[in-house]
């Protein structure tokens, strides 16, 4: 039950669009879908590992030095990741540049460490890392897809040279810095509107249920009263009942 809720959190409380965490790498690396995807996966990896270790050590780390301790743990995993990426994926590592090292100060990771992993069991913390990380991958890829397809008319990840055909004029502003802010702002507004609708529906449902329950109570009351009346009536006319 709790695990399901934790998994749903990644969707319902999307780290980028709803919690407004980790916007720097989201904007900085979403000019192409490829770099967005690898940035998302790198963050997912670090998030799961750091949540796991921090949750394991949550009873050992004194609370007065917890933030430096968390930063040290995260920085260690980021260094491991940097070495692996530089060895096996040198091109992507070059393209991501400083943003790879900057995962250390990504607010999603420290935020989840502080808000979740420091208070919950190892298993739940890993699940939280997976769900929040996937939420991050989803949003950064959505941004990368939109910006690359509409802004450059290509998708390097799938070797597609022209997404909308040769006659399409790319909206060049989208791959520029201003476009990043613009697309993220529009998506955040869209998600706000969607969540608002969902909340409204839930509230409507609750409201209708309340009214139903109340009316049921009222019905019960009237029925009871009616029964009393009829029973009185029965007392008054005992012959009918015998029939």
């Amino acid at each position: 039950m709790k695990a399901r809720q934790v998994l749903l959190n990644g969707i319902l409380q999307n780290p980028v669009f709803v919690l407004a965490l980790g916007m720097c790498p989201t904007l900085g690396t979403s000019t192409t879908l490829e770099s967005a995807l690898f940035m998302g996966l790198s963050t997912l990896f670090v998030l799961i590992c750091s949540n796991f270790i921090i949750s394991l050590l949550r009873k050992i780390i004194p609370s007065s030095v917890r933030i430096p301790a968390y930063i040290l743990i995260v920085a260690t995993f980021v260094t491991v990741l940097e070495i692996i990426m530089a060895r096996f994926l040198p091109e992507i590592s070059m393209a991501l540049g400083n943003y790879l090292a900057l995962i250390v100060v990504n607010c999603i990771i420290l935020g989840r460490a502080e808000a979740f992993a420091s208070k919950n069991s190892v298993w739940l913390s890993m699940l939280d890392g997976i769900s929040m990380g996937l939420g991050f991958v989803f949003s950064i890829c959505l941004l990368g897809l939109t910006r690359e397809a509409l802004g450059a008319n290509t998708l390097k990840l799938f070797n597609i040279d022209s997404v909308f055909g040769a006659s399409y004029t790319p909206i060049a502003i989208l791959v520029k810095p201003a476009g990043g802010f613009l697309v993220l702002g529009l998506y955040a507004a869209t998600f706000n509107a969607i969540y608002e609708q969902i909340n409204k529906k839930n509230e409507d449902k609750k409201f209708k249920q309340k009214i139903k329950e109340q009316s049921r109570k009222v019905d019960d009351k009237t029925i009871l009263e009616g029964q009393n009346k009829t029973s009185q009536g029965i007392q008054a006319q005992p012959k009918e009942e015998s029939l």
Partner: protein
Amino acid sequence: MNTFFTILIGAILVNNIVLTQFLGICPFIGVSKKVQSALGMGIAVTFVIALSCVATYMVYNYVLIPLNLVYLKTIVFIFIIAGLVQITEILIKHFAPKLFNALGIYLPLITTNCTVLGTALTVTSQFTNIFTAFFYGLCTGLGFTLAIVLLAGIRIKFDMAYIPKPFRGLPIALIAAAIMSMAFGAFTSII
């Protein structure tokens, strides 16, 4: 002299750290509701960036490279920055208690501000002179201050305007930042 001027214009206007390199977006959006707190945040960040550029430059060139420990730079840098923020906090508290009260909780938050680590990483990979490194850090901080104060000025006007419900809060701030970024794009051809 010419290089200093190029760095000045480049770091503040052309390659503004927030609006073109997307570093420090969290404080940029989070602390830009009032002009005064934005200004305080900007000054504190400028101070820490300038100091951390010098410190990381020295540690990188005189400790990490001779000892062949370059792969540890992320861990070492973040600890230098955390220490510097702590020292800054103590110094400001001791010598300027008024400023300390004005900055409040923004001071410790600077550790996790990606402008500081981002600038330190850029400096160690690009600059070969400690004075230009310091000057670059200073100008980057000023660029951050300029951007955050401008956004705070714009966001004050939002209180008086009608904004559609889904756009309130984060989305409209991001769209304002997009328009600011377009405006700063006009500086591209200066250098």
